[in-house]
């Protein structure tokens, strides 16, 4: 029976699992290189018209459901219940750690910040030495090696930025393809204040058109941007850039609503293809010469762990037990400030100004992060933002909402987390999802250093707000508990030593040479920045390596 089904699916050179940031780019690179590709995605296409600006199902606040997937009906995970046991959590629970599941994935509905990591981020162990309690290591890949791929991502998807006033900008050979964005009212206020403090503010680079680019129009400055699809496609995602390019080659079939259950690895330790449940929930096979996994740090690890074979009884590429380890996110920290005058001008997406002054520049601080003003907080989200000790209902709560929505500024920053070996993704031994696939469970605590740096950065954010004229300020500092979600990374890290990493510097599994990873899983550490551009760049890096070394039906 399975053979009959196989005949229905033509053998291809490569299956790419996950049509997000990494997978979309890899599909584009492989198809351009002449490989036949099946790009397989568990979600589907989404448009702005389907979701509108509904805050309660956005990817930012999702009490009702995660509008861009995955759905609560078929997907769940296990999370620590605080009593040494586990509890079932659904995609719209915060402890699930959701990332959008659709064509384009997070790049459909993200805030689209387009950061390059700093050169030093690629060799943190050399800079800071071993950090007790952390598996911190150097990348096998340098910034200089990745730089051309950062640039390719910036040009093929489209980044608007202006590094002129950022003395700490990572070296770049060419300018951004589009001019930087303007500041909104709070940006203008914050720029002046930052300069008075001797800091170096500059516009946030964005995967969003400041001018028409690649056939897509310029941004219309919507207030609902982060968490929502773009109504005019000014925001660049893989779904409106590289995936259409891949499809146009004729070498790529995009297969949506298909949930991959395992990578088939034969008894000699070679990947033969995948098993997946199609849109009708029928189990199918797709054979291929090569498998590329780009399913996000949590789901990539889950898939490898669920792909058991004779030579790899603990999952594909997992004989050293490192698959799923070291999951990271960002320890978001910052401060809020209240102002006498209106600082809100309804010019979206809100986030526009950044400073790089507090990243890797203080000897007693390991890491750091960029500080930016925050994206516009929509009404329901704002209803949870109050100074500590405030009553969260009644007249005072409503008065605050009415008065301070237009008179407050938030400054946030992603603290680079130290990788922790026991902060990890596993598969649950008992619980299975709708299709019968063992579910992921995610556990572990942040490193103490993350909290220390978070306090350090929150102080800086609060100072900035005070200088800008805030009459009242307070900090918002994270704790040690977290479930990595939209910035999840690190579960299949690259490295030169097969004992302490999962892939080599090209994303190729040490143990199975025809399985590649191309997503945030590869990150050895996750930078003090939003990771999207680095995931895109790694997609180009991995894809380019495969194409250059491809010979007929296998790697040279």
């Amino acid at each position, binding site marked *: 029976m399975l053979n009959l089904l196989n005949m229905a699916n033509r053998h291809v050179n490569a299956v790419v699992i996950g049509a997000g940031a990494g997978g979309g780019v890899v599909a584009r690179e492989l198809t351009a290189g002449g490989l036949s590709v099946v790009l397989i995605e568990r979600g589907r296409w989404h448009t702005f018209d389907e979701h509108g600006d509904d805050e*309660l199902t956005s990817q930012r606040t999702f009490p009702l*459901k995660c509008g861009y997937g995955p759905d609560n009906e078929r997907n769940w995970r296990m999370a620590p219940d605080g009593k040494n046991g586990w509890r079932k959590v659904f995609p719209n629970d915060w402890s699930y750690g959701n990332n959008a599941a659709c064509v384009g994935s997070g790049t459909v509905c993200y805030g689209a910040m387009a950061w390059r990591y700093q050169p030093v981020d690629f060799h943190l162990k050399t800079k800071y030495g071993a950090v007790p309690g952390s598996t911190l290591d150097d990348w096998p890949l340098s910034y200089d090696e990745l730089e051309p791929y950062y640039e390719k991502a910036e040009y093929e998807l489209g980044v608007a930025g202006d590094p*002129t006033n950022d003395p700490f900008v990572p070296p770049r050979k060419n300018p951004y393809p589009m001019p930087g964005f303007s500041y909104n009212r709070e940006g203008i206020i914050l720029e002046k204040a930052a300069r008075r403090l001797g800091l170096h503010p500059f516009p946030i680079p964005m995967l969003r058109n400041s001018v028409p680019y690649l056939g897509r129009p310029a941004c*219309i400055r919507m*207030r609902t941007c982060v968490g929502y699809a773009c109504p005019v496609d000014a925001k660049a995602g893989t779904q409106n850039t590289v995936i259409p390019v891949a499809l146009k080659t004729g070498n790529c079939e995009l297969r949506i609503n298909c949930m991959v259950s395992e990578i088939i690895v034969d008894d000699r330790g070679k990947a033969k293809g995948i098993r997946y449940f199609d849109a009708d929930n029928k189990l199918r096979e797709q054979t291929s010469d090569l498998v590329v996994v780009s399913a996000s740090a949590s789901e990539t690890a889950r898939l490898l762990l669920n792909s058991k074979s004779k030579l790899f009884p603990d999952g594909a590429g997992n004989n050293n037990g490192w698959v799923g380890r070291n999951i990271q996110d960002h320890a978001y920290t910052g401060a809020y400030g209240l102002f006498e005058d209106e600082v809100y001008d309804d010019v979206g997406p809100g986030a526009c100004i950044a400073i790089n002054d507090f990243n890797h520049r203080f000897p007693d601080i390991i890491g750091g992060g960029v500080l930016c003003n925050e994206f516009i907080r929509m009404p329901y989200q704002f209803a949870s933002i109050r100074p500590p000790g405030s009553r969260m209902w009644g007249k005072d709560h409503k008065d605050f909402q009415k008065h301070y929505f237009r008179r407050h500024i938030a400054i946030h920053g992603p603290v680079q987390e130290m990788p922790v070996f026991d902060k990890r993704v596993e598969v649950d031994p008992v619980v299975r999802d709708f299709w019968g696939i063992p579910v992921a469970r995610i556990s572990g605590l942040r490193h103490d250093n993350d909290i220390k740096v978070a306090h350090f950065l929150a102080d800086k954010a609060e100072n900035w707000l005070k200088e800008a004229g805030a009459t009242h300020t307070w900090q918002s500092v994270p704790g040690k508990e977290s479930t990595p979600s939209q910035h999840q990374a690190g579960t299949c890290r690259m490295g030169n030593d097969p004992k302490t990493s999962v892939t080599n510097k090209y994303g190729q599994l040490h143990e199975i040479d025809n399985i590649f990873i191309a997503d945030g899983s590869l990150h050895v550490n996750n930078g003090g920045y939003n990771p999207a551009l680095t995931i895109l760049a790694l997609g180009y890096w991995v894809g380019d390596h495969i194409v250059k070394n491809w010979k007929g039906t296998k790697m040279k």
Partner: protein
Amino acid sequence: MANLSFSRREFIRLVTGGTAAVLISFNTACRNKISRWRFLNEEEITLLDAVVEQLIPTDDFPGGRWANVSNFIDKQLDTYYRKHQTVYREGLAALQETVIRMKGNKFEELSYADQTTILEKMEAGEFTGDYWKNHPAANFFDTVRQHSLQGYYGSPVHGGNRDYVSYRMMGLDYPNVIGQNRYNDLSWRIYNAKSPEYGK
């Protein structure tokens, strides 16, 4: 549709009375049995309306009751929040029972200030009674509070935030016209002019 069940007296009137009597009886039965709510009943809605009006009171802008927050919650209890059905059914009954025991009246019959005091006790978990031992009052309070804020501040497509009242209150114009380009905001051009990189 709700079942039309007639009392014995109504049944006798139906079969013995004239046409007018039949119509009147039928009307009465309809009014009593057919609810415009999906999960909650009239008594629960009356209580919930009073609670949401405390959580989001009327001032120069309408409060939670006018904004249809109870309708939002009822609608979600029939869709996304089915898992909260028992919590609401039991919690609202226990709240009413607790209030009657403490004050001798229903919650909605108390003065506004007394209602506030009751909810403060509830939020602090200071309710006594068997039910609250296994179902902390503070948890139920927070569930209702969160759902009410969603109903008042979320999109009207879900049944609350009538007439975009919260958006109007916060000075957010609506509808937000898609396609409006802020060409009058020339700051980015001014900003660009400062940068030697441009025009290359």
